């Protein structure tokens, strides 16, 4: 910790002493010394910073690959299938229409056939996760060594505050016993009990064995790329350097670490069905 940072902390601390539990507030508000510009700053330079880049240009509209990724993840992690029962559903990775995920953007004039593209979403493993901050039992926390937001199913009391605090809807709660809803439970991954929260963990158990996340392995052609942002030579860094990538709700200061490469307009034209011409009157008829 350098001198100026310490000085800042001192001032920040002193100014908060009057309020109930000064140091608590600092912790509650976020990382000490976090200033407005740090919302867009680089991730911490120490250790690894694992991140995911989802290359939307390579995903089709049919949702076939998306389904494959979801199946791979949910099978690997014993995620129960509640079928049509949306009320109790559990999902670690799932798909929504592109423009629903990026609601802060507007795509009104995008060609209709390009709207509604099924797009993967999962826990963003934020650098500044609001979910871990609110947990009253430290049952969920951000791993400093690699930035993964972890979950302890044995400590969770099921208060669901983390679900309330997550701006991305990434967490699920076991409203009912999940085990009867598993087709063929995997022996090498724990099942959960009712009453606890769960979510994607970037496949930390596979990473520990030197593997890649299940959804990444389900891809054939780098549709999803996973790696260390603190390694300047990593594939994720190269992709992010060369392409326009967006994240979900970056304005909230959570610093999500799942990036989406949006479609390159030129690619759109090349892969578009011939009958549909951009800007054609088609839009107005629908």
């Amino acid at each position, binding site marked *: 910790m350098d001198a100026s940072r310490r000085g800042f902390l001192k001032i920040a601390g002193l100014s908060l002493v009057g309020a109930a*539990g000064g140091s608590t507030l600092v912790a509650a508000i976020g990382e000490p010394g976090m200033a407005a510009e740090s919302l867009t700053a680089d991730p911490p330079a120490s250790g690894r910073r694992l991140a995911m880049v989802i290359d939307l240009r390579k995903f089709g509209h049919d949702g076939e690959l998306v389904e494959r990724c979801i199946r791979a993840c949910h099978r690997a992690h014993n995620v129960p299938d509640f079928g049509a029962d949306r009320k*109790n559903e559990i999902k670690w990775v799932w798909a929504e229409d592109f423009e629903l995920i990026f609601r802060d953007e507007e795509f009104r004039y995008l060609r209709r056939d390009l709207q509604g593209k099924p797009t993967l979403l999962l826990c963003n493993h934020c650098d500044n996760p609001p979910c871990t901050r609110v947990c009253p039992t430290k049952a969920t926390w951000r791993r400093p060594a690699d930035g993964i937001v972890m979950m302890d199913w044995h400590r969770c009391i099921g208060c*669901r*505050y983390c679900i309330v605090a997550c701006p991305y*809807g990434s967490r699920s709660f076991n*409203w*009912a016993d999940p085990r009867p809803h598993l087709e063929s439970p995997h022996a090498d991954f724990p099942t959960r009990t*009712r009453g606890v929260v769960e979510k994607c963990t970037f496949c930390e158990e596979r990473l520990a064995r030197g593997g890649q996340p299940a959804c990444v392995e389900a891809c054939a052609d780098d549709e999803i790329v996973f790696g260390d942002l603190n390694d300047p030579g990593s594939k994720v860094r190269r992709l992010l350097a060369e392409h326009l990538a967006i994240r979900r709700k970056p304005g909230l200061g959570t610093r999500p670490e799942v990036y989406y490469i949006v479609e390159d307009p030129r690619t759109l034209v090349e892969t578009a069905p011939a009958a549909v011409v951009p800007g054609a009157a088609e839009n107005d008829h629908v």
Partner: protein
Amino acid sequence: MFEKALSGGRRYWAWIVSLLVVIGVGAACWYWQLSEGLAITGLSRDVVWGFYIAQFTFLVGVAASAVMVVLPYYLHDYRAFGKITILGELLAIAAVIMCMLFIFVDMGMPARILNIFLHPTPSSMMFWDAVALGGYLVLNIVISRVTLGAERRGDPPPHWIKPIIILSIPWAISIHTVTAFLYAGLAARPFWLTAIMAPRFLASAFASGPALLILLALVVRKVSDFDPGRQAIRALATIVTYAMVANVFFVAVELFTALYSGIPEHVSHFAYLFMGLDGEATLAPWMWTSAVLAVVALVLLLNPGSRSSEASLVVACVAVFASLWIDKGLAMVVAGFVPSPLGRVVHYSPTTPELAIGLGIWAAGLLVVTVLFKIALEVRGHLRPRSR
């Protein structure tokens, strides 16, 4: 002192037994919930908090409102509250117990609840809420026990209790402030992301709590020799009036900010509440009822004539309580989840077992109020056989 709660007439025991029956039904439903999981509630992946947490939030306000009698009596030596202050403190005890029960039944893993204290997490507002509520319960138990005990012996209360009573005043403010912070600090939920939430919580608490206290005092007057005194009731009515005016003002401020700025994710929650979204308008009739009740209450309270007439004051207090219960105990929590962060409009309404569990907890609170009021009134000799 507790033995005083164990003697009573037929009507007393009939009331106790009927409360126990409601509690029993609630307990049975809770046992069902324990074995089936929270799936038996109306909650879902999108609306993760509902009836239970809303009751908790509303009742924290009732608990905090004891400060409205404690402060004038102990800090300003306002003698007219001499008889009613103890009732306010005892009501606070019952309300905090209900709060704790509502949190408890909402937990997915209630057996692990002590993890909050085994792994204390200062960054979590829920941790602070547990600390604040627990402390407030202890404070009120100690204060009412010591002051009543001294009264029974015919002594003045011991000197050391005074600083504890003074401490309970800011503590009461803190429990409702921390409860507001539970919601107001979340970037994920634009509906709750408002600086007016804590002030509004306090205003609505200081209206609904004393309104309930007036009603309870009048009930007690009916069934015993106890008389809170005209002046105490009038002073409480004035407090309810000011607090209700402040609350309505805060609501208007909030509506202005959301609607005039026009930011869709702020507007959408209010649209859902009052008009409904995508055909989902479960709460709209409730919200309009709440608004009408608030207007009725204000008309009756602001008019000195109807405020000082007991009959219309009772109507006003019922209207205040119902209006704020709908607002805080029904709508405020659910509206934070609809529409969801992905813009989804999801229906939520509590299921029958969920309502039965809630009703059971309300009955448990009433039981605590009954027993504690009974003890206090016995100590004060208001329950001796009437000599008339």
